[in-house]
């Protein structure tokens, strides 16, 4: 079972690397690359911080033992 999981994750990682290598960004205009970086970058920052927000909201449900005493 574990071998199967390892093989699957290795295959997934290889596919990601190969896909990235196969994509050719060299011919793309520099401003297009810039806009892509800007859009994806801002989206990524909001996404990650949004996940932190959800994490905190979930953790707000943790009761403080010392507060209950």
């Amino acid at each position, binding site marked *: 079972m574990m071998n199967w999981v390892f093989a699957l994750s290795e295959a997934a990682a290889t596919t990601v690397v190969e896909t990235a290598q196969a994509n050719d960004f060299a011919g793309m205009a520099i401003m297009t690359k810039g806009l892509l*970086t*800007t859009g994806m970058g801002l989206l*990524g920052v909001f996404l990650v*911080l949004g996940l932190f927000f959800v*994490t905190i909201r979930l953790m707000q449900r943790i009761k403080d033992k010392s507060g209950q005493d």
Partner: protein
Amino acid sequence: MDILALLKELFSGVLYLFTLAGLKTLVMLAIGGVLIYLAVKKDYEPALLLPIGFGAILANLPPVMDALGNQAASVLGSEGFLTVLFNAGIKNELFPILIFIAVGAMIDFSPLMKDPSMIFFGAAAQFGIFATFLVSLLLIPVVLPQTAGDSNLIMRLAAAIGIIGAADGPTTLYVANHFKLVEYMAPISVAAYSYMSLVPVIQPPVIRALTTRKERLIRMNYTEQRAPKAALILFPIIVTAISGIIVPMSAPLVGSLMFGNLIRECGVLERLSKTAQNELANLVTILLGLAIGSTMVAENFLRWDTLLIMGLGLFAFIFDTAGGVLFAKFLNLFRKNKINPMVGAAGISAFPMSARVIQKMAKEEDPYNFILMQSISANVSGQLGSIVAGGMVIALVGLLIGWR
């Protein structure tokens, strides 16, 4: 050896000052002096500006010549102590990581736990990074013709310049170093650290320009209550895991920041926490400042690049501040409980200086307005946001230009 040759060797430093390189040396000594003046007289981030200024003076002293007229080991050169410091702490990204452990040990996430919506200011205030990145892509080939055609270098340089806006020195160094911008390291790091120290000068006019007095008078409710200990311990672990999975390039910085925070919050490592907050922070700050100062060699600093980088860095800083303020104003369109838009400006990473500046401004308008805790929440979020933005920029630019 005749007497004239002996005198020439003895006073080689004085003679050096009468050459073109010597004149540049004098200019750099003056710049180092200005940084020390700002640190001592104006109290602008003295812990950083003073070592940087003195490092700049050391790095620009006339070269030491041996009896044969060859350049001997000095503070620079392959065996000079400043070179050793640079290679040991900046070239391998160690100092930024250590600084983040110290910063993590100083951060209290309790106010953010109380009002997590403030976290989005840490994202909105990264707007300047990306705006500057785009502007840099346009300006770099024009102002620095030697880069024209080298889209790889332009992208890397624009990325490092944009990150200056985060007001996060270690992340700026980390990105610049990742993209191997060694010859641009001096202006980039000086811009990042000097603008960080100029938060009280740069932010207030931008905030005033974008807000009305009525908006600056908005009061926000806050009840003092510490978050549960379990939540404070879990938070750094979960944040590290999320960042490491989604933005792996941010893992070293987020990981070290959160490790420092975990030491603080776990409650069983008080000695380590205090060491990280004091001894580690102080020691690394001294070494980091000197190492940055050592990059300010005249030939690398007295160039058009420096003016461009300093100018764009200021642009980034202003737009980051504006991004946070405008985002708060945007949210106020939909919120019943209005946010004081000044809090949005604290979404940059200069912790805790930016939050203090915002509270000071609020107090100037209304002596009884207390928005420090909300500003601190936005400020610690900015710390997280700038690291994530740095990781995103490294990942995206790296992917687009094929940088390994």
